[in-house]
């Protein structure tokens, strides 16, 4: 069965490693993710995100995206429209039958598109506030 299309009004949650958090006085809280966090994965697969609409439908929240992650991991909330503006496409990619299941697996999606330019990655980063940091 085909997945529902991802709406521009949806939000893509991206897990952010502590090493990718930078200072920026222009954003609330003074911290955001570096553009380095918005690249395809190191194994060559497209950038992983979780769709807020599905996360909420599961009775979960953005906090659950970093389930099991240690202190200082963060969640960046990327408006899907911001990804579309940067010529990215968001494709639902629910994970099933994982050896190490994650509560947000059904909300998993990938972001396809060229992310080589720093300007593109940094524009995405500036549009994606950190909405949760693991205490």
């Amino acid at each position, binding site marked *: 069965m085909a997945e529902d299309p991802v709406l521009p009004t949806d939000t893509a949650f991206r897990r952010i*490693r502590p*090493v*990718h958090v*930078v*200072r*920026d*006085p*222009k954003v609330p809280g003074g911290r955001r993710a*570096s*553009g*380095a966090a918005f*690249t395809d*994965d*190191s*194994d*060559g697969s497209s950038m992983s995100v979780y769709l807020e609409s599905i996360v909420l439908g599961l009775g979960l929240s953005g906090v659950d995206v970093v389930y099991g992650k240690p202190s200082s991991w963060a969640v960046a909330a990327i408006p899907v429209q911001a990804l579309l503006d940067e010529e990215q496409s968001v494709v639902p990619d629910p994970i099933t039958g994982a050896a190490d299941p994650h509560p947000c697996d059904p909300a998993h999606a990938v972001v396809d598109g060229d992310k080589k*330019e*720093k*300007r593109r990655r*940094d524009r995405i980063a*500036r549009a994606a506030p950190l909405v949760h940091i693991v205490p």
Partner: protein
Amino acid sequence: MTYAPAISPTWLTLTASRLMPRLFSQAESSGLREGTGSRAATPPVSTRQPARWLISALERLDFLASLGPGWDEVAAQPISLDLITAAANFLASDPVSELKVQPDIVPTFEGGLLIEWHTEAVDFIIESSPSAGPSFYFLDHETGEEVEAPLGEHLEAVATAFTKLASR
């Protein structure tokens, strides 16, 4: 304090005079100004001090140097000692080390480094990659100017970035 030699336009070898020609020329001329008695014959000696952030930046580089293969739990590459050393030399060079704004140093999955300054006025990012030459991204929030280029090109944008960072 380390002064890198001016050999080629890499961030390892970029000197302050290339990065910030206006600021550097001011500092240089202040030590060579005529009519100041014995001072005019004295080689220019910087009395400025490195910013406090330099020690933590070098500690950060030490930490990044410790990242092994797969540091992202997937397939991220470690950062080469050459890149770490180059970044340390660059940050410790005069007058980069005198900027009041602390840079963030961020690893990339391919084993590169980003040195990032973000202020109300500018976003300025220098990237050094193991697979490509160093490059930079500059966004001036006051004028809207946005430049992404190999380091060594668009030096006026680099100079503007550092001038604005130095003016804070």
